[in-house]
Each structure stands twice: as structure tokens, then as C-alpha cells.
């Protein structure tokens, strides 16, 4: 067990260094002098140029630069935004709760709808429900979510006027940032209607972001269920006279959950990619929008830091999923 944990942790380190190297290289691969590129049309005085050159250290040997970057990263120093001069780390964590709230809601929607859909499809294998659900899942899986978002806006914001088009909450509500989660903070504030406003802002973006994970979870649940349902112990359970609800729910679903949980864990990357599009469309002030805006503003230290932090989050979640998987399934643990 310990060996399994250690070996997984050991593979984490080179990947971590590699990811750091990529984000380090990013700013240095820009064509031309990165400082001039970042300054763009704003222009620079010679004095400011020298100051920035000193700060970024582009004139030092690459190996020295990388070492300084790596040691900085380990200590939580990701540089400063070129535009706001605030530390990238601070900006990231100011915006991260918004993305986290959106992602959590999306994954909850995906799980609550995806798992039952997969189970129903598997139990009705080959019948109408199976076909209908799996066709829908394939459409969801193939969906360009940025277009899906626009359609939902046309219908629910435009025609029906039920939901707002952008932001996290109506401007007339103002309260302290306690958890960073609008849904919770609005409840804590005790203001009338604040929670409803937050929820109405959240619903469309979370549906959009949930779409692809939902389709993936439904497909995965179905195939895992089918596999488990063909196992001998299921036949035994049936032969012993257990009701089919009990067999499906208790015996099969529980065992089918292992691959499904893995898929849920691995969808973090999908969620982050989806957040880039979703947040841009709904003007959701999270890290996806922050990254896109920074690319357009040529705020490359922010892009660099954001790339690294997002990759680290994905890696960490994958590592945790991997370790949990090893914990649940001894076959994985002993394979190496």
C-alpha cells in the first residue's frame, strides 16, 4: 500500500517540474522581446524597461531563470500581473471561488442526472428508454457548449426573461465575502431575495458547464452497469429471489460506481476547459474568464501563473482519484 502511494507521488514530481517548465517557457517563447510584446501599444520608457528587465530577469542565463522561477513557485510566488501589479496568486484566489462554485453546481447536476440516466438505460438495455437516453447523451457529448449557452440565453433570457444574461448576482445586493460562494454568502447576509438572485444567475452557466460531464457520466454509468449486471453474483442474487430493484440498486450500482467515480474525478480538466467558454459567455468572474481576458490584454505573467495553477489543480485531483482508486481496488495497487 505504502509502496503504491510512494510510487504515485514519485511520478507526480517530474510532472510537476515539467508543468512548471512549460509555464516558464510560455513567456519566453513569445516572438520578440517579451517585455516589448507585453507593453504593446502602451509603450515603455527606457527606465521602466530596465526596471522590468531587472524584475523578470530575462538577461540572466536560462537555467538560473528557471531555478529562480521554480523556487518562487514552490514558495507561492507566481509573479505579478503586468496590468494591475497585483500578485498573480492573490488574483487567482480572489476569483477561484466563483469558478469552484460554478463547477461544483455543474458536477452535482451532472451526477444527479447522469447516474440515474445511465442506470435506467442499462436496465432497459436495447429498449426505447435506452435508445432515447443514449442518443440524448451522444448529442450532449457532441455539443459545442458555447453555442448551447447562446441558445439557452435566447430562450430563457431573451424570450422568457427568466434568467439574467451575465454576472453572479444583481447589483442591488451587496454583502460581505465570507466563503466566496455566492449561494452561501447570500443566505448568510439574510437579505431578502439575494439567494434567489444568486441562484438565477447560476442556473444557466451550470447547466452549460454540466452538459458534457453529464453525457460522459451517463454513458459510463450505463456501460459499467451492463458489465456488472452480467456478473455471476448478480445472477446468484436474482436466483436467491431478490427483487430486481434491490439487485440493480444495491448490488449492481454499488460495484458499477468505481469506474464512474473515476470518470467524475477525471472530468476536472473538462470542467476547466468548459469554464473558459462558459465564463466568457456569461461574464462569470472566475478564472476561465480571467485567463481569456489576460490573453487578450497580453498580461502574460497572469497567463503563465494561471496555466500553472490550473494544471496543478488538475494534476492534484487526478492524483487523489488515482490514490482513492488504488485504495478501493487492490488490483490496481498491485499491478506494478
Amino acid at each position, binding site marked *: 500500500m505504502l509502496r503504491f502511494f510512494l510510487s504515485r507521488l514519485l*511520478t507526480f514530481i*517530474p*510532472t510537476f517540474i*515539467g*508543468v512548471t*517548465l*512549460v509555464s516558464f517557457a*510560455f513567456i519566453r*517563447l*513569445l*516572438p520578440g522581446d517579451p517585455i516589448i510584446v507585453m507593453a504593446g501599444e502602451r509603450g515603455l520608457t527606457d527606465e521602466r524597461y530596465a526596471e522590468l528587465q531587472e524584475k523578470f530577469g530575462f538577461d540572466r542565463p536560462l537555467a538560473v531563470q528557471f531555478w529562480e522561477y521554480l523556487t518562487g513557485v514552490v514558495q507561492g510566488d507566481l509573479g505579478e500581473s503586468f496590468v494591475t501589479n497585483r500578485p498573480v496568486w492573490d488574483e487567482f484566489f480572489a476569483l477561484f471561488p466563483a469558478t469552484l462554485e460554478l463547477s461544483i453546481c455543474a458536477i452535482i447536476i451532472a451526477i444527479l442526472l447522469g447516474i440515474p440516466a445511465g442506470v435506467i438505460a442499462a436496465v432497459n438495455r436495447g429498449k426505447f428508454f435506452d435508445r432515447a437516453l443514449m*442518443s440524448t447523451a*451522444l*448529442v450532449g*457529448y*457532441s*455539443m*459545442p457548449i*458555447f*453555442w*448551447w449557452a*447562446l*441558445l439557452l*440565453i*435566447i430562450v430563457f433570457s*431573451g424570450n422568457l426573461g427568466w434568467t439574467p444574461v451575465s454576472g453572479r448576482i444583481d447589483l442591488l445586493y451587496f454583502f460581505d465575502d465570507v466563503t466566496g460562494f455566492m449561494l452561501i454568502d447570500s443566505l448568510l447576509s439574510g437579505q431578502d431575495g439575494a439567494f434567489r438572485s444568486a441562484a438565477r444567475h447560476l442556473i444557466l452557466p451550470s447547466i452549460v458547464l454540466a452538459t458534457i460531464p453529464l453525457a460522459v457520466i451517463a454513458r459510463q454509468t450505463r*456501460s459499467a452497469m*451492463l*458489465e456488472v449486471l*452480467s456478473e455471476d453474483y448478480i445472477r446468484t442474487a436474482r436466483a436467491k429471489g431478490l427483487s430486481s430493484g434491490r439487485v440493480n440498486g444495491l448490488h449492481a450500482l454499488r460495484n458499477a460506481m468505481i469506474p464512474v467515480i473515476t470518470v467524475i474525478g477525471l472530468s476536472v*480538466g*473538462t470542467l*476547466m*476547459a468548459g469554464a*473558459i*467558454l462558459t465564463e*466568457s459567455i456569461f461574464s462569470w468572474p472566475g478564472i476561465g474568464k480571467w*485567463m*481569456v481576458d489576460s*490573453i*487578450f490584454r497580453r498580461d*502574460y505573467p497572469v*497567463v503563465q501563473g494561471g*496555466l500553472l495553477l*490550473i*494544471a*496543478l489543480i*488538475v*494534476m492534484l485531483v*487526478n492524483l487523489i482519484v488515482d490514490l482513492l482508486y488504488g485504495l478501493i481496488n487492490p488490483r490496481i495497487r498491485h499491478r506494478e
Partner: protein
Amino acid sequence: MTDTSMTSAATSAPQPPSRLREFWSYFSENRGAVIGLYVFGFLLLVAILAPLIAPYDAATQFRQHTLTPPVWAEGGTWDFPLGTDPLGRDMLSRLMHGARYSFFVGLVVVAVAASGGILFGLIAGFAPRWLDTFIMRVMDVVLAFPSLLLALALVAILGPSLLNAMIAIAIVQQPHYVRLTRASVMNELTKEYVTSARVAGAGLLRLMFVTVLPNCLAPIIVQAALSFSNAILDAAALGFLGMGAQPPIPEWGTMLSESREFILRAWWVVTFPGIAILVAVLAINLMGDGLRDALDPKMRRS
């Protein structure tokens, strides 16, 4: 005597169906896959013939007909069956020309990502352990970044254009081919036909490309279908964010981003490019499911 009797026995024995036949019989069992194939073929035809069959050039602006609704809506005309965009360009013509870009992106990305990925995967599978580990760690690094984010960052470096978007997407997709190829190679290497080829004196390159690779192709082909549709989606997403094909190129994602501000006034400028993307991607994914059923018995959907 023995010769003739043996040949006659061989011809009279029932022939196994040819590989193509066998493939088709499995593939056509999946009705969705066949529909996907037809739709894909139709779109491909449209893409190839677009300059001939499209009513207008994609860039022609009819200034007196801006934002004309589609023919069945009030105010629509047969001159512009799917309506016109804010600059008075014919939607149908633009969509037809747009198919060229999407299919081009898909083809180039799959070709580049697959050939590079297969090569690295073969090397990793055959290489000594340190090189294998090195290649796979590099791939882990690429996979740690969400694909769209990495593609965005690469385009930020290279500059926004359709070509750079394709390069970025190909780089992002490559690791999947490497992993898949390596895993199949590892699996094949344990089999006896490889040992016998090796004992018979086959060189390393022959072993890699002639002996082992053909037996690893099935999952790679399935992956190719998947990454074709992903390439179209990612290219459209980049175009939508303004980091892919640049206006006035009628790429579907770029068309969507150009018409975003009109969504509440002119639903058709937003609806049709999206339907085009969805239908193309869906057709390819349907085909991919069928390919998987036909090529890979182990992954066959039960």
C-alpha cells in the same frame, strides 16, 4: 497427387469473409453509425463542392439585405434560404464554405497528431525503460493542461490564425495517440508472433512498422474519429473566442462569435452555425461508436 488434393481441399473449405466485409457487417449492425457515415459523406461532399454549389460567394455582401430572416420566417426570401448575417452575406453559402474549414482542420489535426503520436508511441513501446519513462512523463505534462487552455496559450504565443489553431490542437491531441499506441505495442510485444519475427531476424524498424504496428491500428482508428470531432469542436471554440480563424473567414465558430451581439434580434445568425457544428460532430461521433464496435471486440458495447 497430394498437391492437387490439397489445393482442392483448400478451395472447397468455406472462405472466411474478407476483412473489409467482416468490418462492414459489424459496422452496419449499428444503425446510428451508418446514419453518421451518410451524414459525414454528405457534409464532406458539400465541403468539396462548396464553390460550385453554394448560391453565392462566402464574402459577397448584399448591403440592402442585412439580417434577412430565413425563408420560412416572416420577411424571408428564397434568394437567401437561411437568411443573411449582419453584413448581408448569405448564411447558406457561408455555412457551405465553412464546412471546408472544419473538415480541413479535422483532417490536418488528425494526420499530424496521429502520425506524431504513433511514432512516439512506437518508440516508447520499443525503447529502453528510461526513454519510455521520459516520453510518457512529457505526455503526462501535456495532458495535465486542459486541452482548450493549452491550445489558447499556444495560440497566444503563435498569434491567432486558423493554421496556428490547428498546430495547437494537434499538439494537445498528440499524447492520446502516444498513450494508446504504446499500450497496444506493449500488449503485442508479449505475443509469440513478435518473438518469432524477431528470431527470424527482423530488424527493429521492420518489427516496429511491419510486424507490430498493423496489429495496433484498431484502437488508433477509433481514436482518430474521436479526435477528428474534438478538433472541429476545439477549432470552433478557438474561433468563437477570437483566437482561431479570423473574420471574414466563414469558419463556423468564428461566424458565431461575429454574430453574438445579434442573438436577441436575429436568432438565425446564431442558430445555424451551431447546428452545423453539432451535426458534423455528432455524425463523426456516431461513426466512431460504430468503428469501435466493428474494430475492437474488447471495447464492443455490450
